[in-house]
């Protein structure tokens, strides 16, 4: 499934008595990094989870390109997510984790794809050890490989720089820039103003579930 923009219209999400999003309208374009800003509890992660098909909106629409598809396996195959947590299995090695995700994403040439990721993210001999033993930087490289192995059209980044050292942040910036150049739609949530300044093409500010002026 291919699309070059994602639009949300009148998005509302209610959890019990809490209104996480209140009528959010926004648009995210290909080859651009959109930074979503706002204080804790402003609805940023809820918006990201809705875009990533992890949470259903209470009301409103999410439109992926021109096609009238807003859910399903094909759509999820076009989405990648990178967050502070690596979303991997700590008892499996990096290579085993990548092999698992290659199966889940039904890559046609999994061995070649994994070899390319190993090369791109410099996954060395440590990639054969259980992920539980990795440093934060090694975990990040594995997480990048997991999130990007299927070349997602929509890349969602949820505070991905938390806990990273300078080299880790640089690797993240380089990767996001190359994904943008490839044509991906990148949505970035971050509390790091320097990272936002370096990567943002567009900005959306949220406060108490509503879009406000940045």
């Amino acid at each position: 499934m291919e699309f070059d923009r994602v639009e949300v219209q009148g998005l509302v999400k209610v959890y019990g008595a809490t209104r996480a999003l209140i009528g959010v309208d926004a648009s995210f374009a290909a080859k651009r990094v959109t930074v979503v800003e706002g204080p804790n509890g402003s609805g940023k992660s809820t918006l990201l989870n809705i875009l990533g098909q992890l949470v259903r909106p209470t009301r409103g629409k999410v439109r992926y390109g021109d096609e009238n598809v807003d859910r399903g396996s094909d759509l999820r195959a076009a989405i990648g997510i990178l967050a502070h947590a690596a979303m991997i299995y700590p008892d499996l090695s990096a290579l085993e984790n990548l092999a698992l995700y290659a199966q889940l994403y039904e890559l046609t040439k999994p061995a070649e794809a994994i070899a390319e990721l190993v090369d791109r993210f410099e996954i060395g001999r440590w990639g054969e050890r259980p992920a539980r033993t990795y440093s934060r930087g090694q975990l990040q490289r594995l997480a990048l490989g997991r999130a990007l192995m299927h070349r997602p059209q929509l890349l969602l980044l949820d505070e991905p720089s938390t806990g990273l050292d300078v080299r880790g942040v640089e690797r993240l910036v380089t990767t996001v820039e190359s994904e943008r150049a490839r044509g991906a739609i990148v949505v970035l949530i971050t509390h790091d103003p320097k990272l936002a300044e370096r990567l943002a093409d567009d900005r959306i500010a949220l406060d108490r579930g509503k879009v406000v002026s940045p």
Partner: protein
Amino acid sequence: MRRFTAGTWAILLKELRVEVRTKEIMVTAGLFGLLVTVLTSLAFFLDDATALRLAPGVLWVGASFAGVLAMGRAWAREREADAIRGLLLSPVPRPAIYLGKAIGTWIFVMVIDAVLLPIVAVLFRVPLDAQLASVGVILVLGMTGYVAMGTLFAAMSVRTRARDLMLSVVLFPLTSPALVAGVVASREVLGGASLDETLEWLRILTAFDLVAVVSGLVLFEPLMSD
């Protein structure tokens, strides 16, 4: 359908690989089940006839307690490093995630029960004969629905704070038809009845298995999407 089968298979293989490496579920849940049966056998030091009547209850208590522990641990793995988010975002149909996890947990529980059954037989002086094999069949039927239902609620517990509490509090009442039918059918068989004579109980167990598996497949996605 191909994506569903491939996804189920990938998740099942992952479950087995992690367990072979860590042995976490088999050791913790298996030892817990063993502890329950051994302590119970020591607490009730009785004559052969009374021991035979106690055996089904002890077997099912040990198996169900070990089962709830196994289900909780199986989903705790998904919570660590937020792996469940990666699975839910993948293109694998979400019911396939449920099925892969449920089959994996079912295999672990069956291995534990295969150890518990002869141990209970020895401790409670149950003859190792065809009647015991029939109890094994009843246990397989009962634990299938129990694990199928438990996997669904254990999955929900990934997203709640009172995880283990919720699993135990919700699971036992919901699976009481399987547990009651299993205990009674086992008691009848060890009392001398044939499997044919317990057909009504076996029908209840089979019906419960079907309801539990279908509920899991249907409800997993909506329960995990909010």
